[in-house]
């Protein structure tokens, strides 16, 4: 018998991961905007994501909407707990989302919308990272409600995860530029990729060291025998991917660094999953306690089984249509 709650935990985790994969690079690219002051460079950067950003953010809506549908109790506890980071993220997404269209409609205020694009991307990334840290460090639950205050999310650990995500998305953004651009812009992105890779590795290291101190259960999960047989491959794989990534950056293989960076994300994400399982609100609410009634989950399962492959299909087609290097002047606007 298939455990439908587990299936849905994976579906939600999958959509959040697809979101991170797809929106991570365009948020990262936004944060890198201030480092590319030339208008032509910014036009190219913007155009490399303009046709796809909207679809990328839809995965965030699926993550949120799906969480409400499949794990309403978790949604109801987590969202008020993360109130401020969520509002900051949403406002950040407003700023950067409208900038895609607005900056082409004005010359006088273009700089203003460039700032909105960079600032909004930064706000959203920081807020997402902080929210992740706040979830990991644990949330006060009172019955079926959030039981803490509205500043509980802010701790040194959540700030660390916030900065870590900035480094990570930054790396995705830089390697995306390597993939999609040419010439001086690409060379610059190569140099940035190195710095951001080091920053991300430092962040992975710090978060990995700090997490076991949050809760003894996290430490047992990772370091106790026999779990370590399952958990040890994660850091080993991180080291291997890092080596490959460094080699591809050194050899200037344009398309590889981006996908290897994604692999780093996938591993970090798997590590997160190992830490959290089987809780959806760590140490308080398991996926089974939070799950919607079976008939809600079954009803949605049909839709997901049929529609997600179709969605992935036409999304891939859209990326294929806009494949290849983006050239200056050959903008979409």
């Amino acid at each position, binding site marked *: 018998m298939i455990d439908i709650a587990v299936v849905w935990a994976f579906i939600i985790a999958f959509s959040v991961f697809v979101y991170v994969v797809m929106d991570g690079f365009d948020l990262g690219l936004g944060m890198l905007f201030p480092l590319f002051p030339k208008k032509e460079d910014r036009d190219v950067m913007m155009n490399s994501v303009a046709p796809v950003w909207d679809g990328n953010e839809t995965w965030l809506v699926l993550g949120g*909407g799906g969480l409400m*549908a499949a794990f309403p109790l978790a949604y109801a506890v987590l969202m008020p707990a993360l109130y401020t980071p969520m509002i900051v993220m949403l406002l950040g997404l407003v700023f950067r989302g409208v900038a895609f269209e607005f900056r082409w409609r004005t010359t006088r205020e273009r700089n203003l919308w460039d700032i909105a694009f960079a600032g909004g991307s930064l706000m959203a990334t920081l807020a997402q990272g902080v929210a992740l840290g706040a979830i990991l460090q644990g949330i006060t639950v009172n019955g079926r409600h*959030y039981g803490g205050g509205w500043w509980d999310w802010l701790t040194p650990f959540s700030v660390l995860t916030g900065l870590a995500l900035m480094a990570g998305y930054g790396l995705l953004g830089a390697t995306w530029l390597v993939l999609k651009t040419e010439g001086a812009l690409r060379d610059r992105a190569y140099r940035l990729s190195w710095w951001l890779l080091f920053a991300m590795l430092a962040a992975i290291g710090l978060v990995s060291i700090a997490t076991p101190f949050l809760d003894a259960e996290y430490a047992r999960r990772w370091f106790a025998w026999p779990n370590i047989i399952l958990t040890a491959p994660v850091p080993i794989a991180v080291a291997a991917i890092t080596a490959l990534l460094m080699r591809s950056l050194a050899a200037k293989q344009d398309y590889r660094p981006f996908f290897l960076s994604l692999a780093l994300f996938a591993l970090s994400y798997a590590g997160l999953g190992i830490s959290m399982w089987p809780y959806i609100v760590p140490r308080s609410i398991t996926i089974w306690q939070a799950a919607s009634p079976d008939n809600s989950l079954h009803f949605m399962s049909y839709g997901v089984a049929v529609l997600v492959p179709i969605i992935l299909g036409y999304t891939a087609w859209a990326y294929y249509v806009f494949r290849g290097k983006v050239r200056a002047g050959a903008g979409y606007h």
Partner: protein
Amino acid sequence: MFEGFDPVILARAQFAFTMSFHIIFPAFSIGLASYLAVLEALWLWTGRDVFLNLFNYWLKIFAIAFGMGVVSGIVMSYQFGTNWSAFSDKAGPIIGPLMAYEVLTAFFLEAGFLGVMLFGLERVGPRLHFFATLMVAIGTLFSAFWILSANSWMQTPTGYTINAAGQFVAADWWKVIFNPSFPYRLVHMVLAAYLTTAFVVGAVGAWHLLKDTRLPGPRVMFSMAMWMATLVAPLQILAGDQHGLNTLEHQPTKIMAMEGHFESHPHGAPLILFGIPSQAEGRVNYAIEIPKLGSLILKHDLNAPMAGLDTVPRENWPPVPVTFWSFRIMVGIGFLMLGLGLLSLFMRFRGKFYESRFLHIFALAMGPAGFIAVLAGWVTTETGRQPFTVFGLLRTSDSVSPLAAPAVASSLIAFAIVYFLVFAAGTIYLLRLMAVPPHHDEQGPAGNVPSRAAGITPAVGATASGRAS
């Protein structure tokens, strides 16, 4: 600061504020997506340049409006959790899946094909591009389908049971989706979106015709928009009437508030045209009313008895003044739309359609009418169902998140500042685009791509290219 405020009122204010801003954009983009699909179909079919010019002209406007709709919509999808967590926990098993289907069938479809629609004509060719436009248009309609189903279920819940945790659980998904008020609300809203778009398109056409009656683009768009007004405005009034009868059956307190019926009328209720409803006193002061007409409209019988709010406990009363007035604003605009539609028809037959300055000024003034009517309509239906989120079952005060007032007040202020800045700028950019008439060889959002005319001309275009546009 803000400790003295009621967190429920603040949460409602925030939802109302962000929702009102959001609904403006879908109301426009649902209609505009369909209009763009029609324009592109006409271009492919006739090969006339004027349709391509109009398509590209409105596509740029669509890109901005759609972008603003997306970002304000993401806010909505998270606000259920941030501010209405108790509601999310209890109604999530029903509302959640409906919204998940909206994301899966509509948002992805729109977003997936939007890039190609906006920037891809040269890359994929006209036929595949038309397919993308069609998918975006269909996506907007799917979106309306699911979100209105969810909203309607909250207004007229059916097909559910309640489990041990106090959650609503679907007993019959068919009855949940096709709940009693859904078909009426869907038709009413989609027609509203089409009318909203038609009046914007009409106003832009009229604006340019006022300056030059010979411009081909404005002539075509003005004519198309006025046909919509002529045909759809009466349909909308009919749909609204049917929707009202449905509301009378399922949410009688809403109708009582809309009509200002505080008192019961055992021998036929009047139609109160205007007046000043007083919630505290429980009556409509200075009422101008037509005897028995209320019963005639709502029951199709002059003497039919109508119950008033005096039959309902006070704690279940919706806020009457807001519901009463917003309803009148919506209906008033509806009849003005009908008036413009009929006038335009009259001018067509008189042969003064493109010359009548009065008609053009009237149409220009009616440009924002659809938005105001949509907002007024939603205010009517949403305040009229108070004090419940799930009508009759879950009170608004029991739906809210356990957040302190300062948290909600701060976010409300932040939303207000950001929205006014961002959407004011967006509106200015939209108006700037609309202020220039569509011209020959109009470019889409992919404007500065060197045009390869041969690549984007449809097959029939080759033979028809000599025809005047």
